[in-house]
């Protein structure tokens, strides 16, 4: 029964997406509760799966009972189990937030459609994490790109359409160059299953080295565009500026991270280490990560709109993760995995708290935050925790991930990266601290009853509080997830 869990999780999400239109006749809360039950169900089953895989190895599930060379195969190893649990858990929290946030630009009638798209995106996210087949990953990548674009363009504002059009164009170039890379690999190896592709690549990469270089280039550029790695990040800030805050929280803390997992799968499972070292991929990735860290923060300083600023700061944080991967060591990979989880929590907390602020005060500009902490203590409290986490202050999970990244850089004898990590942390200070300072210290003259809990729908507040607690717990007790992550990183067989 355990082997069926991956496909059952995905079919549960698909079933929810199909049942929601039938529920739209009755009162709307029934759809929300029904969706929440399904999310909780899948979360428990992925918890169960994680413990099972931690004990006795990866679940391999062949579709139609065919040998894995012939048919399509799911391979859920420890890293996939951790990330799928992270994706479903964080989506449940963001789902709780979106239940309370009806009016944020999405009409009541549209609301059912928003959830259908959300659940199909979850179906595809789980699929792309589990699958062990390159072309199957392309099909799920397409479903994700359509659903994320339509989640953004569901808010009927003028600038959302222009932003999502640019997002579709760039996303499509990314997927087609990924497909071109897969076609080049298929031309040389004849397989699409990841294990068999890597076996045959190890033997023939000297013979057809031209094919491998060009396939590697197209794949990395394709995934780079979709994961908004620095040189290809143009679409992310515009998409965030105009999207509803729950979908921009989803986009930048979950979808972008899943593409980083696809990048990890490609680099370390398909092209194993000796191919990568031969083509010096590690140095290229280090350069890309370093520029991304610095440039992302510099752009963020210049922004006026809070959401666009958060978009640029996620680009610099993605640079951290790519730096962790570029170390090509189990320490580097485990710190990258930890940063994926901690950045996901922090970025979701930031976006959701900004969403509450926009919901209540209808302000978008950075400099309109005076005295907000007195009116909305909880939201600004969580915003400060998350912002301090982004800067890397101890007691938050951000500090732990910066620490482990620095240790991984030292272990990889690239000490100058620590300087870049610290420099980018300082740049974060420049654009996060003014908001915190102005909201806490500059007091609004007409505040009579400070520190009264803001009147905001309860689901929005609970989700933000959960995220705040999550950032602090992983900051104080990082070993809760750090050991499983080092265990997962060991599995890649570093030479």
């Amino acid at each position, binding site marked *: 029964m355990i082997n069926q869990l991956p496909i059952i999780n995905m079919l549960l999400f698909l079933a929810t997406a199909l049942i929601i239109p039938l529920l739209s006749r009755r009162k709307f809360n029934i759809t929300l509760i029904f969706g929440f039950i399904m999310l909780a169900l899948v979360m428990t089953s992925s918890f169960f799966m994680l413990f099972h895989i931690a004990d006795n190895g990866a679940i391999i599930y062949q579709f139609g009972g065919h040998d894995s060379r012939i048919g399509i195969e799911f391979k859920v190893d420890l890293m996939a189990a951790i990330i799928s649990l992270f994706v479903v858990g964080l989506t449940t929290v963001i789902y709780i937030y979106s239940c309370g946030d009806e009016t944020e630009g999405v009409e009541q009638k549209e609301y059912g459609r928003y959830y259908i798209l959300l659940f199909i995106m979850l179906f595809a996210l789980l699929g792309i994490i589990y699958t062990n087949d390159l072309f*199957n990953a392309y099909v799920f990548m397409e479903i994700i790109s359509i659903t994320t674009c339509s989640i953004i363009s569901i808010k009927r504002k003028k600038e959302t359409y222009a932003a999502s059009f640019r997002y579709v164009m760039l996303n499509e170039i990314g997927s087609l160059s990924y497909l071109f890379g897969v076609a080049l690999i298929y031309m040389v190896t004849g397989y699409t299953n990841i294990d068999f592709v890597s076996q045959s690549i190890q033997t023939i990469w000297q013979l057809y080295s031209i094919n491998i270089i060009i396939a590697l280039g197209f794949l990395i550029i394709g995934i780079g565009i979709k994961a908004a790695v620095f040189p290809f990040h143009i679409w992310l800030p515009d998409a965030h500026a105009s999207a509803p805050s729950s979908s921009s929280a989803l986009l930048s803390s979950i979808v972008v991270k899943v593409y980083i997992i696809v990048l990890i799968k490609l680099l370390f499972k398909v092209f194993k280490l000796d191919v990568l070292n031969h083509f010096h991929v590690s140095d290229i990735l280090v350069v890309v990560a370093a520029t991304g860290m610095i440039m992302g923060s510099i752009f963020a300083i210049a922004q006026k709109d809070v959401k666009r600023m958060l978009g640029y700061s996620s680009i610099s944080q993605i640079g951290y993760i790519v730096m962790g991967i570029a170390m090509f060591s189990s320490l580097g990979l485990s710190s990258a995995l930890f940063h994926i989880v901690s950045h996901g929590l922090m970025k979701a907390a930031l976006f959701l708290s900004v969403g509450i602020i926009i919901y209540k005060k209808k302000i978008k500009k950075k400099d309109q935050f005076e005295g907000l902490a007195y009116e909305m203590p909880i939201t600004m409290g969580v915003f400060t925790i998350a912002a301090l986490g982004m800067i890397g202050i101890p007691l938050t999970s951000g500090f732990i991930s910066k620490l482990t990244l620095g240790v991984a850089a030292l272990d990889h004898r690239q000490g100058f990266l620590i300087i870049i990590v610290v420099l980018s942390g300082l740049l974060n200070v420049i654009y996060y601290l003014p908001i915190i300072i102005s909201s806490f210290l500059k007091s609004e003259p007409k505040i009579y009853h400070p520190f009264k809990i803001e009147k905001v729908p309860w689901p929005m507040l609970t989700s933000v509080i959960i995220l705040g607690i999550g950032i602090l717990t992983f900051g104080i007790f990082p070993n809760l997830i750090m050991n499983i992550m080092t265990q997962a990183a060991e599995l890649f067989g570093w030479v």
Partner: protein
Amino acid sequence: MKKHLLNVLFLILFGILVYSIIEMPTMQTVDAPSYNEVTEYYIENAVNETGSVNFISAILADYRGFDTLGETIVLFTSVIAVASVLRTVKKKEEEEA
């Protein structure tokens, strides 16, 4: 000026790709690297394993059936996505009422 720069860049890229294609195993015969034991397996066993004479439908529906499920879901999402963009709310109420 920017346009010419871009055209030159694309020409250089085209030259690099054409040069690399000449190196690639582009022989379109049975001993191409992609014509390996997986293809032979399909050609020999597809008929008696799936009963369908047309190998492409056999692979499409049976061996790689999960891809085609992904396909139908792409079609389903594209209808929902276009409806969420174009379907004006007031029009929908008339239909429901």
